């Protein structure tokens, strides 16, 4: 942990340091907040597990029920990420955004929609056949109006993710960025979200590639 490290700004280093002020990981029936296990459930299949997370944390957001599993997973991870440490008040809506990545795009919903389209194609399913809808759901929930980007890569690419987020924060395009990995396909799911800010709070680790692996 880098908790004792003093903040240090080098005159040669144009960009200020960034910090991971919160994180959330969800996979294999477990939810971690800032590396600590906060919920575990035997609930299966995935739909039941995601619902069990929602119920455990007593979230109240009726739109959750209409989301596809990718949006539910990303939305839940963002809720856990932001629920304790994030203070929205000093942030302008336009300065908070998302940079997300996964391997399977929206294939989980694509397969469901493809099966349903032979009967009566449903707009409420079709809208979730885009991976960036999860970012839209997070932005609607928290009223974030800053930049969004969704990338589809074969596996988590920390160097690229960090480069993208660094650019947005170093140029003051964003002050706060929710970034990471959100992927669902069938019963397989994984979310690794990080809240990256320019201010150091508590024992926040520096935003470095080795700290988002």
């Amino acid at each position: 942990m880098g908790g004792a490290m003093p903040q240090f700004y080098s005159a040669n280093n144009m960009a200020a340091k960034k910090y991971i002020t919160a994180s959330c990981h969800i996979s294999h029936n477990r939810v971690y907040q800032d590396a600590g296990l906060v919920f575990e459930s035997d609930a299966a299949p995935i739909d039941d597990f995601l619902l069990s997370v929602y119920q455990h944390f007593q979230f109240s957001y009726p739109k959750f029920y209409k989301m596809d599993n990718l949006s539910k997973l990303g939305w839940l991870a963002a809720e856990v990420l932001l629920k304790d440490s994030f203070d929205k008040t000093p942030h302008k809506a336009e300065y908070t955004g998302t940079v997300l990545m996964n391997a399977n795009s929206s294939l989980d919903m694509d397969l469901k929609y493809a099966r349903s389209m032979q009967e009566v194609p449903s707009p409420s399913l079709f809208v979730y056949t885009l991976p960036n809808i999860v970012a839209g759901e997070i932005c609607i929930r928290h009223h974030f109006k800053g930049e969004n980007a969704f990338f589809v890569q074969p596996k988590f690419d920390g160097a690229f993710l960090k480069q993208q987020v660094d650019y947005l924060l170093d140029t003051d395009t964003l002050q706060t960025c929710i970034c990471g990995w959100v992927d669902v396909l069938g019963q397989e799911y994984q979310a690794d979200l990080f809240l990256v800010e320019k201010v150091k709070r508590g024992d926040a680790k520096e935003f470095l590639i080795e700290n988002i692996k």
Partner: protein
Amino acid sequence: MGITETDNVPKVFIIGDNILSPLGQTTAENLEALKGGISGVKQHNDLFCSPERVAASLFDGGEISKIDKNYTKFENILILSIYDAMAENKEIVAHEKTILIISTTKGNISLLETEPHTEALNTRVALHTSAQLVADHFGFKNQPIVVSNACISGVLAILTGTRLIRSGVYEHAVVAGADVVSQFVLSGFQSFHALSDSVCKPFDKARTGLNLGEGAATVVLSSHGKTETDVKVVSGAVSNDANHISGPSRTGEELGYAIKKTLFNAGLTAHDIDYISAHGTATPYNDEMEARALNHAGLQQVPVNSLKGYYGHTLGAAGLIESVIAIHAIKEGLIFPSMGYEENGVSQPINICTELLNKPVKHALKTASGFGGCNAAILFSK
């Protein structure tokens, strides 16, 4: 403070481009078609067994040369588009500071309609699989990047390439986008009642919806411009409505914000802009939102068009196709009429272009908006 034109931030030049559409296989062929007022949108009575008549801009099959049977139509048009765009810059492929960026929304989704569902199919339809196949075809050294962010994908892909060059990570970015029409996409837009059964009419009072289209387009970005007069990507911005996943903002403030930020970062004002290539899908809500956004940004006097009447909505290719036209508006001093527009159908005044304009264009703005509430703007300048 943004990263603006300074000595230590590289400029981003456009050193090659291509549009591969039903209107032509090169940018020049596409420009000739647009000058002739030709639309790629045709009516089809039994497309994918659709019970409704569909108007769409589709490849008829004959015009695309097949490279290899292992490539899908989606990959095939990407490769052909990249090949033509790089015709004069082939050497950058082998450069270790060159990145390939692919923009698409649904890629090979039509394989779900024709192939049995297996684990192998999941991998075959993955967007990164197509991107790697395309990268390997040319021999790009770095792992390609896929941008899939609904209908702003093309604009965001150019912006992503621009930022990677500006931050010094790469020196060249080959940015290519494509989408093809499938039963999947067609039935989805039909379920939204978003399709017009004739050539769409962006911003017109009688507009009834959009046309789908197929196409690919590529821009080659580089920090090494051939001349100082090459068109440059100057700035860009993205925003989210935070309002609805399938309906645009009621106020247009968020797209307006992305536009204003784009102008601010370029050190320009609304009066400096000579041409705006709007998203203009011809759905009632999109066009209204855009008109409001342009007014928020003070751009109501600037000539604006939508190219959807020529190409339909090519989804992940749209931002790229329309950016290439904007780049050539600067190069050739040409602004095309907004096909299908007769009578104002939006509540805020905007200056829709109704005839071919020959005038110098120094700064051209391209905008896009999409599902998930996303908006993007990008500025090209001489």
